[in-house]
């Protein structure tokens, strides 16, 4: 069956460092992959989408990579700030239906 795994449930880093979150998938050949941010008690908010023919995508301090051979996406936040503390979810489209989400990685940035 199709699976999405975000290896770390929690990641703690210091302000100013780069946070790197991992998303692995199996039994998928997705056309694109997405990353969302979720704050406690709120709905997820879309951050970035990367297509299978794109190796890297950037948006301000965010960078996403997509390796279809490794079946992995990396999500980077450079120069992290306490305001970046949240849960980050990766998502893939389940063939012809809707997005399936990983369990998320909770990032805590300390000052």
């Amino acid at each position, binding site marked *: 069956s199709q699976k999405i795994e975000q290896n770390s449930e929690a990641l703690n880093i210091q302000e100013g460092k780069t946070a790197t979150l991992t998303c692995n998938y199996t039994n998928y050949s997705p056309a*694109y992959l*997405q990353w*969302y941010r979720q704050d406690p*008690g*709120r*709905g*997820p*908010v*879309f951050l970035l*989408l990367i297509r299978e023919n794109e190796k890297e995508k950037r948006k301000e301090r965010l960078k996403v990579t997509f390796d279809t051979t490794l079946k992995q996406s990396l999500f980077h936040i450079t120069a992290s700030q306490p305001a970046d503390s949240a849960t980050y*979810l990766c*998502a893939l*489209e*389940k063939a012809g*239906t*809707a*997005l*399936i*989400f*990983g*369990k*998320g990685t909770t990032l805590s940035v300390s000052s």
Partner: protein
Amino acid sequence: SQTIHQWPATLVQPVGSPLSLECTVEGTSNPNLYWYRQAAGRGLQLLFYSVGIGQISSEVPQNLSASRPQDRQFILSSKKLLLSDSGFYLCAWSSIWGGQEKLFFGSGTQLSVL
């Protein structure tokens, strides 16, 4: 601009009672609509999605049902709640013209079944 409304924000219900959660979208037409649930310690679980009025696809067999009586209205229901139905319920929409490239989520309903 498009907005999504979901209510209530919190709900405490006894086991065996019925449930009705409503979601409406404004500012767009013919959206794809979704219900997800997020239980403690688990990820977002897709429950139902709809590509049009009266068209509902169920992803997980359970005692919940969904209906779409109008283009921009999506309702999640149960006749008898179970303890395991507790969780954070999220409604979302995506633009049919953009495929399923982005989901826009509502603010969620925290349901506690006691």
